[in-house]
């Protein structure tokens, strides 16, 4: 599905990601974990076509376009860090934006209704400005919106950021549900322990470099998680 080889991202003199190689196979949930500033966001923004980078990214065997608007059309949807809700638009308009690249009007209407059924709270708030939703509601809207583009790969950048534990748990449960629908998922998180309960495999990033990768139990056995994270999971999440 997704194959990333030797990805490198720099901001002027700062090398945010170096030589990152990773893979997400069909039907998998793959976690990308790392502490603050490890380079997770930079990596997924580069993959999604928002940041200049070197290295290769392919989806389903084809090179992924290097510009976000075309990467989306190739089947990659990124829910960005901070959710990327368009706060001046209504909930329904945000959902409609999710189908911006679609040509099938009838299909889009039906798919919007499907997401509203999946998230009844969005149906209730459909004509409210999306900026007025709570953090958890916004995250559901962001995920529902991303699904409207019918992605083959869904990339979520810290979906639990700033959410109460119960809401974070709901989001993780939702991610598991989504896998069952056939979409592959790349999940960026700091909350390593929770993520590893649902992820098939994980990659651990540390100051821009891949530190380890493997299944949850493999990583735990090698003691790498404690090293890379347990210091950070106890920190209070920053406000959204």
């Amino acid at each position: 599905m997704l194959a990333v080889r030797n990805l490198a991202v720099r901001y002027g003199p700062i090398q945010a990601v170096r030589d990152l190689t990773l893979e997400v196979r069909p039907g998998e949930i793959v976690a990308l974990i790392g502490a603050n500033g490890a380079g997770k966001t930079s990596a997924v923004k580069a993959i999604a076509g928002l940041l200049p980078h070197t290295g290769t990214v392919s989806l389903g065997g084809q090179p992924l376009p290097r510009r976000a608007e075309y990467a989306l059309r190739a089947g990659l949807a990124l829910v960005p860090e901070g959710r990327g809700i368009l706060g001046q638009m209504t909930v329904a308009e945000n959902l409609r934006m999710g189908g911006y690249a679609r040509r099938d009007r009838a299909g889009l209407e039906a798919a919007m209704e499907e997401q509203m059924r999946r998230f009844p709270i969005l149906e209730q708030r459909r004509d409210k400005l999306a900026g007025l939703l709570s953090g958890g509601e916004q995250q559901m809207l962001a995920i529902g919106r991303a699904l409207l583009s019918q992605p083959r790969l869904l990339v979520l950048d810290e979906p639990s950021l700033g959410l109460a534990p119960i809401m974070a748990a709901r989001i993780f449960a939702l991610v598991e549900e989504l896998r069952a629908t056939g979409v592959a998922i790349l999940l960026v998180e700091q909350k390593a322990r929770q993520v590893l309960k649902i992820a098939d495999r994980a990659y651990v990033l540390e100051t821009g470099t891949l530190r380890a990768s493997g299944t949850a139990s493999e990583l735990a056995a090698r003691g790498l998680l404690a090293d890379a994270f347990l210091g950070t999971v106890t920190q209070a999440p920053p406000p959204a």
Partner: protein
Amino acid sequence: MLLQQLVNGLTLGAVYTLVALGFSLVMGVLGVLNLAVAELFMLGGYVGLSLILADYPVAVAIAGAALVTAVLGVVVEKVAYQPLRNAPPIAPLLSTLGFSVIFQTAATNIWGSDPLLMPPDLLDARYRVGSVSVGQAQLLVMATAVVLVAALALLMRHTRFGYGLRAIAENRDVARLLGVPAPLVTSGAFALSGALAGVAGVQIGLHYSAITPYVGVEVGLKAIAVMVVGGTTNIWGVLLAGPLLGVLEVMTVALGGAAFRDMTVYGLMILTLLVRPQGLLGRAGGAQRV
């Protein structure tokens, strides 16, 4: 008398509104002031008036002006903005200032610095409603503005282009992640902005029965005031502030004399910046991006 001034003020306000919308569209999408809009307005007036003098119908003159200024708007984008995307905001501001001067000089060279006059018998019918007399030209100016504003509102709410534009205005990266072809939509915004300014230029020509190379500076600055009072990127605020400032200006002249003409308009702009920086209808906390 007061009612008559109100009608005159609303006519002027209609012109200010369209030019302000021209500024506001680009401001919304890129967060930068496109000073060239003021001179596209002036050029629109010249193109429109030239077509009228060549005996084309007014509707053709308006469409022709809109087309020319839309194309020039895109030229401004390609030359003054796109290469400077990652430069500090002052850079594109200055390059559009450069375009303004070039447009003005070009107009002076082509049409001369004396006013270009409209045929005296064009749209000169007047209608009396009670004590108020409304000119045919005035009616046309107001009607075009109402139609264009309504069309713009529909475009923003109900078309893919409108959705894309609003998304980019709010967050360019998010819009791109959702599949909005940002460069294309941005060019579209510049074209639309130019077209609105161009139509407004024909309107001012009809209203004043003349056009000069300096009308862009005069009206353009007022349109910026309208935009600031309305709340930079807030279309509805602009719709309120345009007529308001038009009426305010006309009333100031009627009651206080021509010497005070621009003082109240710009005074209101400064007052807005001081006490309500987000503009009449802008949201609190959303500071103006000029």
